[in-house]
């Protein structure tokens, strides 16, 4: 029998993540070469602002993909949260945090429904979230009667726009805190271990005494809450509610997670890789803007990128 050294196992885990970070840096350098000033402080700050939103949304997507599912309701939860926040706050300073609490409540409910459908009704995660996503889109349209109005409060726009720590805005700080928490939970807690166990093999997770329904439903609740947080703070960035808010976030988040090295089949990967994945997606997107590529080209490139990553992941698994 071959002896497994822990050192090589550790390297096996670290290497792909290091590779993703290297690709991110490389892409940024290419962008800087094509458009000197890309790596200037101002531009990094503006990219960082957008990265933070996608980063928060990707926390949920990472957790769900780790359990072996995919969340297609993400963009609609963000949209609903954004539209709700815009109309309920409507510039009223004192309504900011009560609205936030209300939105969190709505998101918990959405997460419970998603999780219950996936666990109890055994509906494939993608189909379940596709259905709740469509329903939520309808709810959003009904709530705003097809034309979202309202605008952000001063607090909210200063969180999204004012630099507080060096070149970081409030949203970036929120993201960093949430990201650190996610990494910690995934690595050091029972919840994190259980998420990996469920993603690797649900049946054996049940037999090893993991309370699968609790973990799965928690994951969907966390995901919906993170999407809600994204949508809420997004209002500070966009100032008003828009129906096109976060339209590309489903594919962006899936691409970021998959590019970041998390297996689409669940059970392996993590949020550290996702952060680099988010960076790659954002740098790639601004790179394509530099190259004057239109929306169509961006979508095609992103789709092909996901396909290449999938072929790599699935190709490797099937060889074993």
């Amino acid at each position, binding site marked *: 029998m071959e002896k497994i050294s822990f050192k090589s196992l550790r390297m096996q885990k670290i290497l792909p993540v290091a590779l993703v970070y290297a690709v991110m840096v490389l892409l940024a350098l290419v962008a800087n070469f094509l458009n000197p000033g890309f790596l200037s402080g101002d531009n990094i700050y503006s990219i960082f602002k957008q990265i933070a939103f996608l980063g928060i949304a990707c926390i949920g997507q990472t957790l769900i993909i780790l359990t072996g599912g995919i969340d297609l309701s993400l963009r609609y939860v963000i949209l609903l949260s954004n539209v709700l926040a815009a109309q309920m706050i409507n510039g009223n300073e004192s309504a900011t945090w009560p609205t936030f609490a209300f939105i969190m409540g709505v998101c918990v409910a959405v997460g419970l429904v998603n999780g219950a459908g996936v666990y109890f009704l055994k509906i494939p995660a993608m189909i379940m979230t596709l259905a709740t996503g469509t329903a939520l889109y309808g709810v959003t349209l009904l709530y705003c009667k097809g034309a979202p109005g309202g605008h952000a409060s001063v607090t909210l726009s200063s969180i999204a726009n004012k630099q507080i720590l060096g070149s970081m805005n409030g949203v970036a700080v929120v993201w960093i805190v949430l990201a650190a928490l996610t990494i910690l939970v995934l690595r050091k807690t029972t919840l994190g271990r259980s998420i990996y166990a469920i993603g690797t093999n649900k049946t054996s997770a049940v037999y090893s005494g993991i309370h699968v329904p609790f973990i799965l439903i928690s994951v969907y609740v966390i995901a919906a809450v993170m999407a809600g947080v994204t949508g809420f703070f997004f209002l500070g960035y966009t100032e008003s509610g828009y129906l096109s808010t976060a339209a590309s976030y489903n594919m962006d988040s899936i691409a970021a997670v998959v590019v970041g090295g998390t297996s689409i089949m669940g059970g392996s990967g993590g949020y550290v890789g996702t952060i680099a994945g988010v960076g790659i997606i954002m740098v790639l997107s601004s790179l394509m803007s530099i190259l004057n590529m239109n929306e*169509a080209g961006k979508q095609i490139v992103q789709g092909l990128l996901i396909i290449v990553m999938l*072929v790599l992941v699935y190709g490797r698994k099937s060889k074993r």
Partner: protein
Amino acid sequence: MNNKKLPGILSDRHNRQLLVRRKNDVLLVYAFLIVMIAAALFLSPNFVKPRNLRNLLCSNVGLLLATFSQLIIISLGGVDLSIGSTISVVNVTAVLLLKENPASWLLAFVVCLAIGAGIGFFNGLLVVRGHMQPIIATLATQTVFAGVALLILSMPGGTIPSVLSKFVTKGWNYTVPILIAVLFTALSWILMNRSSFGRSVLATGGNEQSAECTGINVERVKVLAFVAAGVLAAVAGLYITCFTTSGNPLVGEQYTQRSITTAVVAGASLAGGKCSVIGCIAAVLIMGIINNILNLMGISAYYQYVAQGVILIGALALSAVRSEK
């Protein structure tokens, strides 16, 4: 008629039970359809007017065709998320190629069907050679082909010859769309129930390993299933183009979710190996009637989205409860 044709199957008691259970599903959908029609009659006096009924039938032929496409992949045990993008690509291509000159129609049809087949082949290749689940492979290709549709036509616009669109959607006093629906229902029924290809698809969806053991070339069946689904999606795209008479790179988007919903309402199992072509007609009409009633009663069309999501979850919950029994 069936009894005479299939003595072998009916002699087997277990198979007979299976057959009855499958018919039960279809009966359930039609019972639901009758309830919906009764509700529609009760809620709006305008429902029975010939103009409304005609509109109800003609506007949903596209969805019916898309459902048949989705049904093949669901029978295989997968879900096709790229069907909407396929419809969009076909729509913008058709608008680009269809000119007043009837000779261009043939070219456009052939090109569109070839595009459908090509997209299906690409999906099938990813599934078979890339060893991916269909739902994941098509999630990725969906983005690519949505981009391609935007590349061909970045803004809604363009129009197709009105002679063609009128003939396809209103021709012969509205019998042409009905004929198209009947023709493709018959074709799909024969394909799924009476051809070795359809049986192989259902066998593969039911249990891939045992299908392989009975000598079915599973990989070939999968690729062919995606090609067939792609061609059917292209036909749906062509009908939808004739119905909307213009180009829109986002026109197909809604059909992905709607086709999954109707196929599942019709009694198809997402686990694969089970489908009902005849049930699809009832399922499409149910979805059509819901939208129709909302329109007739002047209720916000936005309820459509809520209704669609709730019905999809409801149908899946029902099938989960039934399969547990």
